[in-house]
């Protein structure tokens, strides 16, 4: 089904969208949210997707995250066309290839740090010991080695977002997809999170961050600006290159 063992080497195109459109039917009116999107993202890139409200950012995020299917056009993720897959296959792809980081952290309240990090592994074929060991390593990596048994409610916002990043890394995904990762954080914690993202970029992870925040855009290597459902601008920050 999904062969996640073959890691793309740095520079390979891992995300290719061609003529991708998304329409919603609102009564008799057809709402064209995404219009002929053509994007190619290579492995190891740090991309910021920006744009004003209503520009189609969220819809594009859902597309990239395989939460939604395009109305037309194609979407190749890691060389596999995922645009017309069945629901169960999309779930499997999300689990194995996408690491989500949300604005509101989205940790599960009744589970502790380790258990939250383990969720994506639970839906893949990890053994019990393997899963626990990996979760502990990831918790350590984001600096929460001493809070493994804490519940989300016992953590600060910044700490919660770090758990979420560790969780996103659990299945070693192709893409880490972050939606306003600093939106709910004070500037200090936000800077921490951006630091972690920079570090991940340094480790040649592929990062896609959807944001309003121009500050994040300066961290990214490449900025894609959407306007009215089209790619309005696609620029590289050469200083980061």
């Amino acid at each position, binding site marked *: 089904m999904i062969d996640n063992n073959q890691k793309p080497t740095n520079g390979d195109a891992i995300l290719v969208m061609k003529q991708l459109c998304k329409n919603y039917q609102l009564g008799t009116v057809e709402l064209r949210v995404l219009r002929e999107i053509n994007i190619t993202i290579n492995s190891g890139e740090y991309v910021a997707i920006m744009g004003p409200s209503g520009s189609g950012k969220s819809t594009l995020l859902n597309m990239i995250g395989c939460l939604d299917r395009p109305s037309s056009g194609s979407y190749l993720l890691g060389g596999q066309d995922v645009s017309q897959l069945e629901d169960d296959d999309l*779930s499997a792809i999300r689990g*194995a290839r996408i690491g*989500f980081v949300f604005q509101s952290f*989205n940790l599960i309240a*009744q589970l502790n740090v380790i258990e939250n990090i383990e969720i994506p592994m*639970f*839906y*893949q074929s990890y053994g019990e010991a393997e899963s626990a060991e990996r979760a502990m390593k990831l918790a350590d990596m984001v600096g929460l080695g001493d809070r493994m048994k804490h519940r989300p409610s016992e953590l600060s916002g910044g700490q919660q977002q770090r758990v979420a990043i560790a969780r996103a890394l659990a299945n070693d995904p192709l893409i880490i997809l972050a939606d306003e990762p600093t939106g709910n954080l004070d500037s200090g914690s936000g800077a921490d999170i951006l630091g972690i993202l920079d570090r991940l970029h340094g480790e040649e992870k592929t990062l896609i961050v959807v944001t309003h925040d121009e500050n994040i855009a300066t961290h990214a290597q490449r900025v894609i600006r959407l306007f009215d459902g089209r790619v309005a601008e696609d620029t590289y920050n050469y200083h980061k290159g």
Partner: protein
Amino acid sequence: MFLFRFKRTLKLGVKSLWMHRLRSTLTMLGIIFGVSSVVAMLAIGEGASRDAQEKISQLGSRNIIVKTISPPEDKSSVGQQQTLKEYGLTYDDAERFRGAIPNVRVLVPNRRISKQALYRNSRISIEVIGTVPWYPEISPLRVKYGRFITSIDTHYKQAVCVVDEFVRKELFAFDDPLGQNVKIGGDYYRVIGISTAEKSTTSASQDNSGDNGGGANVGKIYIPLTTAQTRFGDTTLQVGAGGSPTLERVELQEIIIQSQSIDQVLSTRRSVQTVLSRFHKKNDYEIIVPLELMKRAKDVQRIFTIVLGSIAAISLLVGGIGIMNIMMATVSERTREIGIRRALGARKRDIIMQFLSETLILTLCGGVLGMGVGSLVPALVTYFGQMRTVITPGSLIMAFGISAAVGIAFGIYPAYRAANMDPIESLRHE
């Protein structure tokens, strides 16, 4: 792998339920009451059924019991006071049965008289049964010490008697009754045997109020039928309902016929009916066939079980609806969690399993607790209500199965609803 997944799902379910302890407990109560009522009702039903069947089978499944009853015409006519009422089974009837009915194995004519028995200073009311030596063959009566009446006793009309356990306890508190003399009526009888206490055979049939059978707590003394005939005669003085004395002449209170096999019971019964209807113009007898009673008891029992079962089933249904209600609330409350899990790779069936397992944990825990409570209730009923109850392993297995079925039946829809939520919508849900 699979085991880990199972363990994790279970652990997660327990955790989620534990977060809402009060809610989970209240929900579970519905199932506890449902299952315990199933178990308790079945136990009470089963106890009642076994009681009835035991009583009936003591009468003997191959037996046909013909009893004397006072004819209804005589009871209603007020003018015939002080006259000699003559009715009931006769020695001739016994002879006719012996001669006319095929397939009869044993035939026992019995004479039953209520008397007082006296030994030293104690006096108790007893029932004297004039019977034949082969009486033990057709009844559950067993001689524990000594011997039963023999044909020699019968032939010489000996004044001997066999007392039952009850009489031994009441009358011979400290003495060994064997060889002692008991005074019954005007005469002394030597005790030759002690038998087990026979449960009153008459209590198994409902319509025997005219009998002198007495309740279960009347001791019985067995004497030879011939002795009873000569010593007591056939006439007794009865004080009627209006206080006016009547003389009654009844030769035999009952004749018990045992057919050779169960198959022949009904044909024998027909022959008995034919013979009796030829010679008895008055309706002064009744025929009791334990086999038929047993069949009827089983029918009644089946209806009883169905009624009890449906009441219990309704309470289980209500419990199930309660569970479904709570699970629907839980699902909508945890919409966001569902969205998160879906985004992190959970397939629809993973979500279904998660919520279904929660429902199953609730119902199975409720089922087990319900089995406990349901086993306790019959014990209390037995203790306080003096009713027999029997908990069969089958009823426990059934109760457990039902609670699992309720869990699946009422859990599947909420779980399905959860699985079919749109992940994008549910992630946005506050």
